[in-house]
């Protein structure tokens, strides 16, 4: 297992402009995996990437590449390459020369350069674009050139810093599939930075959720979604109802005013916990059959399902259901034991997972600010 680690970060700390960005961060990345650093803007994900690339030197800690300490190796001598947020193509060179740049630096012979560039252009579906001016390309095409340019020097690790952030939704979805394909075909390691949880879930082998310069959880997308470690992760990945609860015993949790059977164990007796229930895991039933009952306060049609907010004794639940429910109706909620996930209390407890102030409008607003901040993570 040990020899599969291509990159290892040990006890990394860094402050930029007087602000502590990363605190004692430890992370290892396996060879050939697609790993995503996921978190809100300012969480330190881009800084982590820049430390791996060599653009930033950590104040403390070490960076290993294939078991070799590369902490003091400058960027141009590292076997990693970066796809920058805004591509950073060289506007004075055409597509061919952009892709050939790294090869020319290595003084590779022209026929070989030509072969590699042609191969790379085919890989990113840009055959025939050799002579094109960078400024005449669309955002998606520039993105492809950036990928081709980085891959042309045959890196063992490709670092991608929110590469799809500037593209529109449709193009972003296409590029997600394409990037994943390229990664699998070439069999190299991708370290991908994003604040978009959907992107992370659909592309990654491993997700690293970060906040406040600290890694919150590392795991497969399914682990992260189903078994979030704390309220922050539960809230950041997908929608969650997070309730205050107490473990009465192994397999028995008490919340929302009653006891529920669950599948979690190993907590102390009567230990206060956070309880996560995903909106799609709650069944809407009649009042008589409900484990808890509440009043529907809002219903929003989402296409595939309805999103309803239910007030249960003052706590607002979000529930996704395919059956229509009338606003103001009183309904029962039914929760299977495997729909309940128990988390230890953390500093994030009580901050997330209540939908009492929730509205579509607020969600949209916060999305907008995300887009903006996502463009310029840490300085």
């Amino acid at each position, binding site marked *: 297992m040990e020899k599969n680690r291509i990159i290892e970060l040990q006890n990394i700390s860094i402050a930029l402009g007087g602000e502590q960005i990363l605190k004692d961060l430890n992370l290892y990345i396996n060879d050939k995996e697609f790993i995503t650093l996921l978190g809100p803007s300012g969480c330190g994900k881009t800084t982590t990437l820049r430390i791996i690339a*060599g*653009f*930033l*030197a950590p104040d403390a800690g070490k960076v290993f590449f294939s078991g070799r300490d590369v902490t003091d190796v*400058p*960027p141009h001598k590292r076997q990693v390459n970066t796809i920058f947020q805004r591509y950073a193509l060289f506007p004075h060179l055409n597509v061919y020369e952009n892709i050939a740049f790294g090869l020319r630096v290595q003084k590779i012979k022209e026929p070989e350069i030509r072969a590699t560039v042609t191969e790379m252009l085919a890989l990113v579906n840009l055959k025939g674009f050799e002579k094109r001016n960078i400024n005449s390309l669309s955002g998606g095409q520039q993105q492809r050139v950036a990928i081709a340019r980085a891959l042309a020097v045959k890196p063992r690790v490709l670092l991608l810093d929110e590469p799809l952030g500037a593209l529109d939704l449709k193009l972003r979805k296409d590029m997600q599939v394409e990037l994943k394909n390229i990664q699998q075909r070439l069999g190299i390691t991708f370290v991908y930075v994003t604040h978009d949880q959907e992107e992370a879930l659909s592309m990654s082998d491993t997700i690293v959720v970060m906040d406040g310069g600290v890694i919150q959880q590392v795991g497969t997308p399914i682990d992260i979604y189903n078994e979030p470690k704390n309220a922050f992760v539960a809230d950041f990945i997908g929608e969650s109802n997070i309730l205050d609860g107490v473990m009465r015993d192994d397999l028995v949790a008490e919340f929302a005013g009653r006891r529920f059977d669950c599948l979690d164990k190993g907590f102390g007796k009567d230990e206060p916990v956070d309880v996560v229930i995903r909106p799609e895991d709650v069944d809407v039933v009649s009042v008589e059959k409900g484990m808890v009952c509440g009043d529907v306060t809002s219903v929003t049609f989402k296409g595939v399902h309805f999103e309803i907010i239910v007030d249960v004794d003052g706590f607002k639940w979000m529930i996704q259901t395919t059956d229509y429910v009338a606003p103001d109706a009183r309904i029962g909620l039914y929760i299977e034991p495997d729909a309940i996930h128990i988390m230890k209390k953390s500093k994030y407890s009580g901050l997330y997972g209540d939908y009492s102030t929730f509205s579509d409008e607020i969600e949209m607003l916060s999305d907008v600010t995300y887009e903006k901040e996502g463009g310029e993570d840490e300085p």
Partner: protein
Amino acid sequence: MNRKDSLFKRVITAPYTVWMAIFVVVPIALVVYYALTDADGHFSAANITAIVDYGRTFRISIELALVSTAICLVMAYPLAYAIARMKARRQGTMIMLVMLPMWMNFLIRTYAWIAILADKGLINSFFQLLNPDFPGFKMIGTRGAVVLGMVYNFLPYMILPIYTVLTKIEQSTIEAAQDLGANRAQVFRRVLLPMSVPGIISGVTMVFVPAVSTFVISKLLGAGKTYLIGDIIENFFLGNTGTVNYNIGASLSLVLMLMILISMAVMNHFDKDESAGGML
């Protein structure tokens, strides 16, 4: 930043740092030193108090420079506005035409006016052609000639920045004002003028500073009769028509420098927009 990289950046800035320190900062410090010492190098406020003797010269210099600046502004604005409203191709040509005279050395441009204004110059010749008994205007040696020289030399410096800000005002802004009921005068007073303040301010500075400190224009067109602050400074340093005295010369320069700094600070206070309409 990477450690090596910041070293690289420090190395490339070093020649500049050294150069500017020796040839900009030290000279200014020396001017201050001379201004505050006497001929023997002892501290003395005598040079500063001596400035009172030149109060009249300061006043005339400032007056003439202000009048020239005002004339430039009044002359330049309509032209700049007209050019800014032309088709793009035409604008380029017109701006070229405005800048072309500036490519001539300003000594030559000023000298050319002597030919026109002299007692036996073109203007007087013209009038004498009509009336042989015409006594002739006395123009060279008057303050009017000095102001004319200033306006002529520095007018393009006023046109260009005003033109630049005016091109940035979109036609739709003016149309919006008209749409809201503003007439021509109101559009000008309430929209165009406030929006062109940054250009006016940089134009005023670019005209006023060389005008208030000139000594060539006053020498050539003022025929030595209109004595400006620049003439006095020149004399104290080169002693063409008097004794060399670096100390008083330095204190006069210091006052001139401070005066301009203060007036620019005041101007910038009015100009909240940081991106003033520069020349280039």
